[in-house]
């Protein structure tokens, strides 16, 4: 069953020489040459010779990793192509080392019918540099009232169902969604938020919001809704995926549910793993996201949860916004930041270089773990596998600039910041999708 689509570029013939291959799936962590022939990994070994016509890539000192998978992005297509389209978002994904990315359904119109989904698939076949897939909405128009035709949407290739951007308003509709999604065999991804506690909220509720005079969004707003969704999943023996977990309280609830055998998976964003509410003091709207940046103790708990596997994977929640909307007073700016092009570098520098998380763990959480949740074959740097990999220069220090981003929108909290580790080459579905080696 197809869940991603991309345009047909020429299959890669490459010899990636002398890089350190780190593939936690196969247990490899060694300097190896990787021979890619006709888009497939043909051989790993030392002293491999490039066949005639194959390009040789000198990867000495670099990392060769399974390609990354993003379970949570906003493609803004259809409806807001001024902010992002499938060509730009897939270029951004490729530049970030991603070999697959999935777009949420809060488009305009909402992706809530099979016809629309098939149209997006056709468009991805024309425009997408890396395989893209799509969520379908849980409820029609994201209105929280009537379920979408999940059977047909699943058959059309929806990776899962989510009303992300909006919370499911009632326990009843959450329950119906978890019950009915079983007909499609797809998962439901929950944007957990108690609307009554979110109203007017601008940032995490705590000492920083008290000082800055911005209305707080208590962590309770998330954890209450996580608890509700997990209780329903337990009751219905349904599986559920929790989007962008941001608070320690939610983690505690997820841990309890996992111990009890509830089929729950969870994701965390690079910004929640590395930034905190105090950054809002700049009133820079690029620090405004939903869920909001939380307290340092939440951030630490999220890092530990990523390390332990309590949180299964990293997802970017890549959310492009036009400068007309985002370059506004903090209170008036929309929530969300872009993240595909910076995710790996941000986490490599902040968590791996600092020794908080082993490289292999980060790779697992960004590659095979999200791939499995999406129902994809996990990317592997192994003979016989489709070439889904990226080459990273771990020494490279680069500065994030608007002009340097491939995304059509530039609302990144890391603008002007130096990051460590740069993706130099991405091979997605056997095709070179990003090449920064020249």
């Amino acid at each position, binding site marked *: 069953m197809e869940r991603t689509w991309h345009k047909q570029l020429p299959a890669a013939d490459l010899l990636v020489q002398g890089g350190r291959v780190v593939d936690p799936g196969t247990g490899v962590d060694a300097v190896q040459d990787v021979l890619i022939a006709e888009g497939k990994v043909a051989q790993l070994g030392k002293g491999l010779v490039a066949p005639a016509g194959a390009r040789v890539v000198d990867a000495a000192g670099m990392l060769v990793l399974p390609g990354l998978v993003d379970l949570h992005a906003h493609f803004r297509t259809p409806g807001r192509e001024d902010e992002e389209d499938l060509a730009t978002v897939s270029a951004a994904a490729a530049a970030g080392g991603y070999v697959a990315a999935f777009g949420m359904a809060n488009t305009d119109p909402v992706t809530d019918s099979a016809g629309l989904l098939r149209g997006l698939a056709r468009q991805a076949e024309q425009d997408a540099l890396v395989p893209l897939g799509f969520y379908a909405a849980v409820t029609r128009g994201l209105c929280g009232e009537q379920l979408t035709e999940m059977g047909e949407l699943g058959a059309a290739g929806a990776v899962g169902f989510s009303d992300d951007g909006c919370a499911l308003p009632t326990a009843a509709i959450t329950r119906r969604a978890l019950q009915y999604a079983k007909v499609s065999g797809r998962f439901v991804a929950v944007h957990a938020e108690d609307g009554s506690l979110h109203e007017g909220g601008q940032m995490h509720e705590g*000492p920083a919001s*008290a*000082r800055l*005079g*911005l209305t707080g969004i208590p962590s309770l707003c998330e954890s209450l809704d996580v608890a509700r969704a997990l209780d329903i999943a337990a009751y219905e023996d349904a599986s559920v995926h929790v989007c962008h977990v941001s608070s320690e309280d939610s983690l505690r609830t997820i841990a309890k549910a996992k111990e009890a055998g509830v089929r729950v998976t969870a994701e965390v964003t690079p910004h929640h793993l590395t930034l905190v509410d105090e950054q809002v003091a700049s*009133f820079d709207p690029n620090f405004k996201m939903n869920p909001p940046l939380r307290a340092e103790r939440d951030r630490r708990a999220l890092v530990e949860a990523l390390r332990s596997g309590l949180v299964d994977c990293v997802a970017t929640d890549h959310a492009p916004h036009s400068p007309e909307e985002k370059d506004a*007073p*903090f209170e008036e700016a929309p929530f969300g930041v872009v993240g595909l092009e910076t995710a790996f570098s941000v986490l490599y520098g902040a968590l791996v270089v600092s020794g908080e998380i082993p490289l292999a763990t980060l790779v697992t959480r960004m590659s095979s773990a999200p791939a499995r949740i999406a129902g994809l074959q996990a990317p592997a740097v192994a003979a016989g596998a489709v070439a889904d990999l990226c080459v990273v220069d771990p020494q490279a220090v680069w500065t994030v600039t608007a002009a340097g981003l491939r995304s059509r929108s530039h609302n990144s909290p890391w603008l002007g910041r130096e990051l460590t580790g740069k993706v130099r080459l991405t091979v997605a579905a056997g095709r070179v999708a990003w090449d920064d080696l020249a």
Partner: protein
Amino acid sequence: MPKRDLISMEDLSRGDIELLLDTAESFLPVLERDIKKVPTLRGRTIINLFWEPSPRTSSSYDLAAKRLSADTLVFRGTGTGAGVNVERGEALKDTAITMDAYSPDIIIMRHPSAGACRTLSANTTASVINAGDGMHQDPTQCLLDLFALRQAFGRELKDLKVFIVGDILHSRVARSDVMGFRMLGMDVTLVAPPTLMPRGIEQMGVTVEYDLTNLKDADVVYVLRMDAERAEPGSAYLPSLREYAALWGVSRARLRPGQRVMHPGPINRGAEITADVADDDENLIAHQVFSGLAVRMAVLYRTTVGYSDTSAEEEVL
């Protein structure tokens, strides 16, 4: 000289605050002359940009600028209703660019959104003075409060005990005052109903209390306005204004002799303060209003000439 904004009390050091208060004091004689005007800011352009109606604050700034001989323009923004957020944001940036064409030296802005001054400052070469942005800050209110306190208690305000009573959650005045008062070493206690006390506010170095039991310890009782909307259905901060007045209203019976009462205005009599307290000659409320003019003159002056040079003002005056 790089431009200098005054958006938050955090933009000022203790020394800056002392200097502003001293400068304000040096302007007092000017305000008592027949001709209440000095040529200090002649040829300078100061724009008043008010996105919320506030005739008292706006005119206080305007008069302060005129007393210093600056050329002034007053713009009143529109579109402050709900649901026009994006349009308003665009308008602010465009307004800033438009005004920049007049090469203003200072733009004074009041805006309903916290962070609006930052947007403005990023799009203008003028110095930005915050005349109130959402629930964030109102730095000149704090400075004029400090000025009034100096007039009443002398220059040394360290260890003065102040109780700020009321809707702390929604109050930019409370936030600015806490910062300024703490910078000068004052002892600050906040009193509010639990629903109107921001979570985590104690990290600003204040004591948090939920009733007036210890009010007798205060040298100064700073009363905040309680808006009727906090007791409206749906907002659910308070069951009623009547109960608020009963539990947190500042009345003669709750005060001991010698305590000085302050209020940033406008007063909601019978809610947060009783008439006998509001009308008492011993309160500092009129001093606060009077202080506003001198303090705003000082802020405009220092923003223009800088915070380091103290000789210039003596020359001018």
